[in-house]
């Protein structure tokens, strides 16, 4: 059960005489360890103090209700598992036709590679490149970074590289637009509806499942969850 944690207190400097910072300020030296106990809401920039969450609980912002973070270890295991599934689905979605269209006796299949090749053949290089990046390259980068992170954190190797990988993942997540592509397939279907006979191909289901996993899980992971997991894994190695 996802519960809004009322325990999470608002950490505004107006209301709280911040004990954590009182010492650091007076000496003019800031302690980084103290800052790790704080979190700022990505939605409204309100400062909060972190608490340790029980299993399967979500921490939400006290000011706007936006998700702050959830129980970490569980999230990361799921992310790796889901990205393996999504990876297989994505390959299927790319290989087989999404829809088949019959107009005046001729059959045309819609596959993602065919779409990009058509754009390039017609001379629309800019459109073709951006479509390629947005619906093939960016999702692949997101998925493979999750898989790589899973491997690297399992063996606890290459700390610097996995650090770089997480920041890269956070940025490339904004450019993956498979969900929007799926909606536009539906729009195109309506446009074709009167003129052509349409059947759904194998990969329409694969694409639908991919979009569901992508939207419901992979895109909703907060960077803080990855970083907390990362720090815990690599700090454990030191001891």
């Amino acid at each position: 059960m996802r519960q809004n944690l009322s325990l999470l207190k608002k950490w505004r400097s107006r209301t709280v005489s911040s004990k954590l910072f009182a010492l650091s300020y007076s000496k003019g030296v800031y302690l980084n360890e103290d800052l790790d106990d704080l979190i700022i809401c990505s939605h409204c920039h309100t400062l909060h103090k972190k608490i340790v969450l029980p299993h399967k609980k979500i921490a939400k912002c006290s000011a706007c209700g936006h998700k702050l973070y959830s129980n970490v270890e569980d999230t990361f295991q799921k992310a790796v598992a889901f990205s393996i599934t999504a990876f297989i689905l994505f390959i299927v979605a790319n290989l087989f036709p999404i829809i088949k269209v019959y107009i005046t006796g001729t059959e045309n299949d819609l596959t993602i590679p065919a779409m990009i090749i058509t754009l390039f053949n017609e001379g629309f290089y800019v459109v073709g490149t951006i479509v390629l990046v947005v619906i093939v390259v960016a999702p692949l980068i997101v998925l493979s970074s999750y898989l790589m992170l899973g491997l690297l954190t399992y063996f606890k190797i290459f700390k610097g590289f996995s650090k770089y990988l997480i920041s890269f993942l956070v940025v490339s997540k904004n450019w993956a637009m498979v969900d929007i592509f799926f909606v536009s397939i539906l729009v195109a279907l309506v446009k074709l509806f009167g003129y052509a006979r349409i059947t759904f191909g194998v990969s329409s289901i694969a694409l639908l499942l991919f979009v569901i996993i992508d939207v419901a899980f992979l895109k909703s992971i907060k960077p803080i969850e990855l970083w907390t997991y990362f720090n815990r894994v690599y700090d454990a190695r030191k001891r």
Partner: protein
Amino acid sequence: MQEKDSKYIRCPYCESVNIDDKEVLYCRNCKNRISGKKELNLHIAWAMLITAMIFYVIANIYPILVISKLGVTSQNTIIGGAIALWEEGSYPISLIIFIASVFVPLLKFVLILYILTNYKKTQKGSKKIDQAKLYHITEIIGPWSMIDVFVVAILATVVHMTSVNITAGIGATAFVLMVFFTMLSAMSIDIRLMKEGNNGD
């Protein structure tokens, strides 16, 4: 009171809390750059926004879809396509196309303009605004204007015969570039600009 709150800044890459004490600030956790020089960031955001606006005008003037039916070519602009769908009677799709490709980019321009212009106002301390929320809205709605380009690409792939042929038009290129530059403009807005907007009452 508000000063203390504005001393902390959120790293957009790892969400760790940093102390905002330098102009060019690197995250203490992930070593990525949180915030560069203020004026430079503003200029980049403005430049991207103006480029996007120019492409928006071009995308609306030139055809996005070229249909050749038995030797007769007809060219559809974005608004023309939406109107044609409306006249055919598929109102919801027409509305989706209209909202996604005409209204959303305009809304995004207005929001970014608002953030960029009101930043200077709040520095003078005249008005309180909630720019972080506006920015969040632009981030969410931004990519959805790609719908029209995808639809054109799908139609161009699927309808490809000797009797009927659909190809993309110049408008499609301009439209893609418009979306690209608006996203870059939104990304290059300094996180600090919004924070200062919040505390400027």
